[in-house]
């Protein structure tokens, strides 16, 4: 299961998309907290 999940990183495009999504999520949390 975990190996299946980690396969998302096999594509560099998906890696970048996850990075952008993580950025948005963290920025949102920070904005709410600050």
């Amino acid at each position, binding site marked *: 299961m975990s190996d299946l999940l*980690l396969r998302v*990183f*096999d*594509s*560099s*495009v998906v*890696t*970048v998309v*996850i*990075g*952008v999504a*993580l*950025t948005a999520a*963290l*920025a949102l949390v*920070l*904005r709410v*907290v*600050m």
Partner: protein
Amino acid sequence: MEMLLEVAARWLHFLAALVWVGHNYATAVTRSRYVPLTAADLSDPDSPRQRALMQREHGTFRYASLLVLGSGLLILWERGWLAEALSLQGSLAPLGVGIWLAVIMVCNLWFVLWPHQKRVLGFVRAPLDERLRCSRVTFLSARVNTMLSIPVLFFMGVGAHGVGLFS
């Protein structure tokens, strides 16, 4: 003198970051899809992939990561901002988020990627199937750092030029 030190540290910070993260981005472009190593790649030291691996492993980007972290912390310490940034206080909180993500990246590089890569390259003796397993771990570890570099760059930029977004 203090100004000169800060400018030099910032310059070093940018240069080392380009070397380190640039290595990850270059790999993401040249190997956009995962291609697993095979037993033949590793058992023959003259195989094209083994030679490519050896050429990539020269330590530059690993030491660049330490320069990035060290110079960044030096700049903050010199300004008296280090404790506030690391504890995510006030307007330095966005910068602090970026720093902690960068710390995770450096730890990932030195404590996950590098020990496994040593086995892949044969610097540490390991059976062939273990080396193949380690090659998968090094790939994933590098990809995690590529992914984390995106928010790090965002929070570095915002921390210096866009704190208003969060207030």
